[in-house]
């Protein structure tokens, strides 16, 4: 039974590796034997060399650190502002009425579409980056905080009424905890969007020194090996961030029944 399961897992892994390996072999072959677009392909060895080079010079660490700083700075301010805005909209009705149309009309503009305008206003330095990344984290934070706080069940609020809780006590013991799952979902989205926005902003505003900047330089110098290294790092980071947040939220929401 156990051996069979193990065999199954190994077989599945082998199957899953076929396609990536085949693609990899094709790519490597193209790079070495020169096809129609040979200049566009780099061999695995070259990518490995680029990675070593970037690690050695410390460029990768520097760029990575700077990108993370941008992403988390934007995430912090954006989701904090989003949390407060969403909560104000959910709890104070006139605020809801006044902000909902404005929120929805601003949200229609594709995020990076703000860049030229913000570039004109705030230059192409770190402040502009922070604003756009913050904005990307702001939208989901507002939406999910609002829906979470608005979605509290009336029957739960009634229990608070029965035991004569004040508005403040009701907020902290009932509204907030029951909104938390939604708020965590929003945070997860904010995080993902902040990371995407960071890369986009760095590609478009090549000032400073982030992963996006390194990719941009790699592209200009036709160094595909560098570009590939950066893509892998960006992808891995996105994956790790998701993992981290879902672990965190699972811990904070351990009161929920585990669903299979």
């Amino acid at each position, binding site marked *: 039974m156990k051996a069979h399961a193990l065999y199954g897992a190994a077989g*599945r892994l082998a*199957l*899953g*590796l*076929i*396609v*990536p390996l085949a*693609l990899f072999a094709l790519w490597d072959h193209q790079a070495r034997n020169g096809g129609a*677009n040979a200049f*566009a392909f780099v061999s695995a060895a070259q990518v490995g060399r680029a990675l070593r080079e970037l690690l050695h010079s410390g460029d990768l660490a520097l760029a990575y650190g700077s990108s993370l700083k941008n992403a988390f700075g934007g995430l912090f301010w954006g989701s904090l502002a989003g949390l407060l805005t969403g909560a104000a909209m959910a709890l104070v*009705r*006139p605020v809801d*009425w*006044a*902000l*909902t*149309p*404005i929120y929805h*009309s*601003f949200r*229609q*503009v*594709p*995020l*990076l*579409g*703000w860049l*030229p*305008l913000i*570039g*004109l*206003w705030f230059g192409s330095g770190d402040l502009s980056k922070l604003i756009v990344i913050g904005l990307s984290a702001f*939208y*989901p934070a507002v*939406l999910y905080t609002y829906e979470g706080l608005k979605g509290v069940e009336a029957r739960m609020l009634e229990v608070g009424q029965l035991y004569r809780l004040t508005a403040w006590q009701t907020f902290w013991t009932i509204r907030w905890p029951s909104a938390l799952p939604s708020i965590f979902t929003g945070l997860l*989205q904010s995080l993902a*969007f902040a*990371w*995407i926005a960071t*890369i*986009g902003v760095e*590609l*478009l505003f090549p000032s400073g020194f982030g992963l*996006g900047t390194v*990719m*941009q330089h*790699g*592209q200009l110098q*036709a160094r*595909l090996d560098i*570009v*590939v290294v*950066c*893509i892998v790092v*960006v*992808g*891995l980071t*996105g*994956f790790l961030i*998701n993992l981290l947040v879902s672990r965190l939220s699972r811990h904070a929401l351990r009161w929920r029944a585990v669903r299979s």
Partner: protein
Amino acid sequence: MSGGTPSAKTVVTMASPLCVLLLWHGLTAARVFPPEVLVSPQAVLAAFDSLIRTGELARHLGESLQRLLWGFGIGSGSGLLFGLAMALSVTFSRLFDPLFQALRQVPVLAFIPLLILVFGIDEVFKIVIIAKAAFFPTALSTLDGVRGVPKAWFEVARIYRTPLPALVWRVLIPATVPAVLSGVRLSLTRAWLVLVAAELIVADSGIGQMMEMGRQMFRLDVVMVGVIVAGVIGFALDRGFVLLQARMQRWRPPATGAAA
């Protein structure tokens, strides 16, 4: 727990965007900021008017929308097929799942330098990047939608000895269409976002190029027209899709969900 009357709500909802406009107007009329920093609403209107009369806006928009159509069509179409194949064939899923999951982690924008190196900066690059953006949400939601059809419904069909065509037409498709459509909707939003970003980076034509040129020439009025048009188009695309969605699934209770 009683709030304001509906009329109070309407008043506030209508007044708040007006207040923003008035504030904007007031700030420019009082010359709080120099015109290079904040142009007046009238100037933006004038720029809009001249962009329309010279046919420039129509040309940019036409190019952008054509790209969107191709990229989105190819991307979400192949995403649909891919998702179906993943859901229906275990072997296919085992072959492609690892690659699919890995690529999913990388933000689309990070692929821009790579795709520029491989495809150059021509039309092909833009269509490929839009297609890539549209591919994943549709593929993922199709996969989830088909896999998520409850077993219980198949059992109901077996009890009534439902023939296969009827099973597909009456059960399988209605059960999966909502999930697939919400994925397609997300694909459309993503495609528009990435299109604008790509046009900002490789500025040769399209609405993004118009904004980028405006920025480089310090034409704040043109940039603002671009921001507004990009927002309105994004809104119209999404609304149009939601209307279509509503027509295709009239049996569902109206949903108020919003795509992030």
